[in-house]
């Protein structure tokens, strides 16, 4: 340890009497620093601490009482949620990890064709800092989309030929062309849109919903994450459990990930020789031990563990029923296409998401990786769209015909968009696109949002927002609004702050998107 410069003797550390201060002060110090004074003061400190303890508890008790009545009727957290009657009871989030190129899918820029291989004007980019992948590029040649666009639906919305199925349901979608984010790299951007913060440790949207709205059924988790099997040809950015972490909320609210293989949950069956009764007895005993630990240690994570064991027990029967697709009518397969028969594909996951919606799962998030098309965009985009287009269309259409879209919010988004200029070489046959946080296209459909509209405008290069920008925080605030939550009132005290999904910068519900 570093010593104080004036301290030469660690056995006898310096006291105020050794300091170069007026002798009157030293006398005063010596006079007041008596044992009597020390003991007297300690007594007062203890008294105050005891008082704070007493009053603090009274304060907390009155808090708990206020929220009691809603909790009593719903069996949920005492949070008084939803704040108002919600339009959507549940949500399904199709997450396009990697950053889909908006100008190849939705953001139609017919003027770009004439500017093929021309340099993008400096004024468009301004002083924006680029990623390490293109910052060193000598020039930024404009790469118009390789695919033609056409108008679809009664709204006449322009959609790329890459998305023939999405085009069919275009009138049901609420398209946001001006979503924007703060981060230009995958990890911070994907954390920001999922958790409202670029750093790990904050709960994601699904965990907030699980915590705030609670479960709608006893036998399946409130928040389920489905990962789509990766295609090794694609540029797959990692997604990890940080994205469905409950952060500082209890672990009960973390997303439960189902495997993308044939066996969505491993070891679901009881081993040979162990029947349900034995399993139940074992769990009861384990719970007793856990409760003992809880009483001794008081760690809320023990509670979470008890709840998870119970959920796992119930999932032993509910998950096989959920994933048993043998009773699906032929019309399902006609709609979702042949991919849906293969576990782990995006279409299969979409079908599972619909089945979960029917079974009362509050929030389902499907991750599809591979949209990070830095090079060979022309080669990879048709593959990516083939994998995802029909599934998304089938999900929305299926929910709609079954009457579930009225109270289900479907969300389609990536963490950012892609640049209009080509990364690497540009030819008539191929180009690549770098990350672009300033504008990207997302869509929502269903409960709470207005169908058939396109929100916001981007400039001629799909580079900057001209009108009605929607920050990812606003995006999340709007999602919460559709589910009946006022994002400003939905907070959790942690580290001395009223933490919320949309903090710390003010976010706004985008009224123009609402039904």
């Amino acid at each position: 340890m570093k010593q104080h410069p004036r301290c030469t003797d660690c056995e006898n550390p310096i006291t105020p009497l050794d300091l170069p201060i007026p002798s009157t002060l030293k006398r005063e110090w010596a006079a007041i620093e008596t044992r009597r004074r020390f003991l007297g003061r300690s007594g007062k400190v203890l008294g105050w601490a005891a008082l704070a303890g007493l009053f603090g508890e009274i304060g907390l008790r009155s808090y708990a009482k206020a929220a009691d009545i809603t909790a009593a009727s719903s069996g949920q957290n005492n949070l008084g949620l939803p704040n108002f009657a919600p339009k959507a009871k549940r949500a399904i989030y199709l997450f396009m990890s990697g950053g889909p190129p908006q100008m190849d899918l939705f953001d139609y820029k017919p003027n770009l064709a004439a500017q093929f291989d021309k340099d993008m004007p400096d004024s468009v980019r301004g002083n924006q800092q680029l990623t390490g992948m293109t910052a060193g590029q000598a020039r930024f040649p404009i790469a118009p989309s390789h695919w033609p666009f056409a108008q679809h639906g009664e709204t006449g919305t322009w959609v790329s030929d890459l998305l023939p199925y999405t085009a069919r349901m275009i009138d049901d979608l609420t398209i946001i062309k001006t979503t924007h984010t703060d981060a230009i790299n995958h990890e911070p951007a994907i954390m920001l849109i999922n958790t409202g913060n670029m750093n790990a440790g904050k709960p994601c949207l699904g965990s907030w919903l699980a915590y705030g709205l609670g479960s709608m059924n006893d036998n399946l988790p409130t928040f389920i994450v489905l990962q789509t099997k990766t295609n090794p040809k694609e540029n797959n950015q990692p997604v990890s459990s940080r994205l469905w972490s409950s952060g500082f909320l209890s672990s009960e609210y973390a997303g439960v990930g189902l495997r993308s293989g044939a066996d969505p949950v491993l070891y679901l069956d009881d081993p040979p020789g162990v029947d349900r009764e034995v399993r139940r007895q074992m769990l009861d005993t384990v719970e007793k031990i856990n409760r003992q630990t809880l009483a001794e240690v008081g760690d809320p994570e023990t509670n979470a563990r008890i709840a998870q064991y119970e959920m796992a027990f119930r999932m032993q029967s509910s998950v096989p029923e959920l994933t048993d697709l043998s009773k699906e009518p032929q019309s399902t397969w006609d709609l979702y296409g042949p991919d849906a028969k293969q576990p782990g594909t995006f279409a299969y996951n979409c079908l599972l998401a619909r089945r979960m919606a029917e079974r009362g799962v509050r929030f389902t998030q499907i991750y599809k990786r591979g949209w990070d098309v830095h090079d060979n965009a022309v080669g990879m985009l048709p593959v990516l769209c083939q994998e995802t287009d029909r599934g998304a269309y089938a999900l929305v259409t299926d929910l709609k015909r079954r009457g579930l879209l009225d109270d289900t919010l479907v969300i389609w988004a990536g963490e950012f968009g892609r640049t209009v200029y080509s990364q690497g070489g540009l030819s008539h046959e191929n180009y690549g696109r770098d990350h672009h946080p300033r504008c990207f296209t997302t869509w929502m459909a269903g409960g709470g949002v207005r169908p058939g509209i396109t929100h916001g405008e981007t400039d001629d290069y799909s580079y900057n927002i001209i009108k009605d920008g929607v920050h990812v925080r606003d995006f999340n605030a709007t999602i919460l609004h559709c589910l009946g939550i006022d994002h400003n009132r939905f907070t959790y005290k942690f580290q001395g702050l009223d933490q919320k999904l949309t903090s710390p910068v003010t976010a706004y519900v985008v009224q123009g998107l609402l039904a």
Partner: protein
Amino acid sequence: MIAAPQRLTVAVRTLRTGTRVRQWIFVFAVAAVLALIPLLLPLNGKPHADWLQFLGRFHPLIVHLPIGMLVLLPILEIAGVTKPALREAAGFVLQIAVAACVLTIILGVMLAYGSGVTGSTVTRHMWGGIVLLITLLICLTVRPAWAAGEVHRVYPAVLAAALLTLTWTAHQGGSLTFGSDYLLRYMPGPLKRFIPTASSASDAAYVGSVYMRTIHPIFDAKCVACHGASKEQAGLRLDLYELLIKGGNDGAVVAPRNPEGSLLLQRVTLSPSDKHFMPAEGRTPLTPDEISTIRAWILAGASPSAKSIAGISLAAQNTDLPLEPVGDYSSFMSEIRQMQQSSGAKLVAVSAKPSDGLILRTIDVASSFDDAQLARFQRFAPFIVEAELARTAITDASFDTLSKFTHLRALHLEGTAITGQGLAKLSSLSHLTYLNLSETKVTTGALAPLKSMPSLRHIYLFNTPAEKASADTKDTNATLRSTQ
């Protein structure tokens, strides 16, 4: 309390010395002069000499001087019980408080008379100041007798009255400066319920028009603090359409179809440094969007009732029916809890607002939830707005029970054994907007009674005989489409 009048007579008797009588005469004379101020200097909306306003604008600064002293005064008087020196100081503080009060009133009158402001709040604020000064003069006159122990309760009572007057007057002044809803706007909702909201005159006749939905809110947020019922700068009020069109001291401010010739638009588009720029006094200027909205509205004729105007996009009207509040079920809470435990089905609050009603959720016990189970929930029927009965064991017999769920808005019957016999019984449910009959045996014929239910706008028939029968007839396709 009974002793108070007696004390007062004692006080009057002790005042019989000449100086005190002269003091009282002085107080009454001053009071009379003060009461005449509003008559001598009428606030009729006409501005006067600029130097009046220049000096008058020190009113908001000086006003804090008497306020501070008057708040200090009772503290000194109370502390004087133990420290007599403080009580002596209190007398001095009272004297300079009166002097500061006189100065403040003079400046205040200068400000009001000079700027030509009118309005009920201004008038109230001025009268408040006058009454306050008179009360303080009485305090000043009574205090020597009180300090000498000759009277007891008169001085504290008058001082208390003075402080109440001060509070009220200061509030009026605050409302003038910051707008009348400044104090309570961010009050927590639960407290707000106890404050009666003053219902002001409004253009009720124009509800739903472009003016009411876009133009009026702009004025309300940016202009009405100074050009409203409580404060009428330059004789102009923008809170009512008729008064907006009438204009102010400088004549009409809106010239229909002539935005460039409209004084209102000219003032808000001046350079912010211009003397005539509005909103004045550093208040938030109008945004470019707001200005272009007003311009488009004036260009289209500044109509109060037009429902659509080119260039102004209105947020889509919410076409959903407003939620009908259900009754108070708080007395049923313990029964509801018991019912949930015994049946396994849940009654979940739609939102934190109890009047939004309850959702009947059967998902965890669907396979065993039958007609008899549903009948048990009949006693909570008026509070249930949504019944999630998908894949339950209920049959057509339940339509009798369901017809008693009078507040039902959404009914999920998908995947049940119903055939639709008895759907007609639902016609008593006037709030029902959503009916899901997917994957049931419902036939086209059984659906006929639903046609008489105008509020029922979302009917789902996926995978039913009704859907299959209508697959080739365009008619029911249209029905299905209209469900969206």
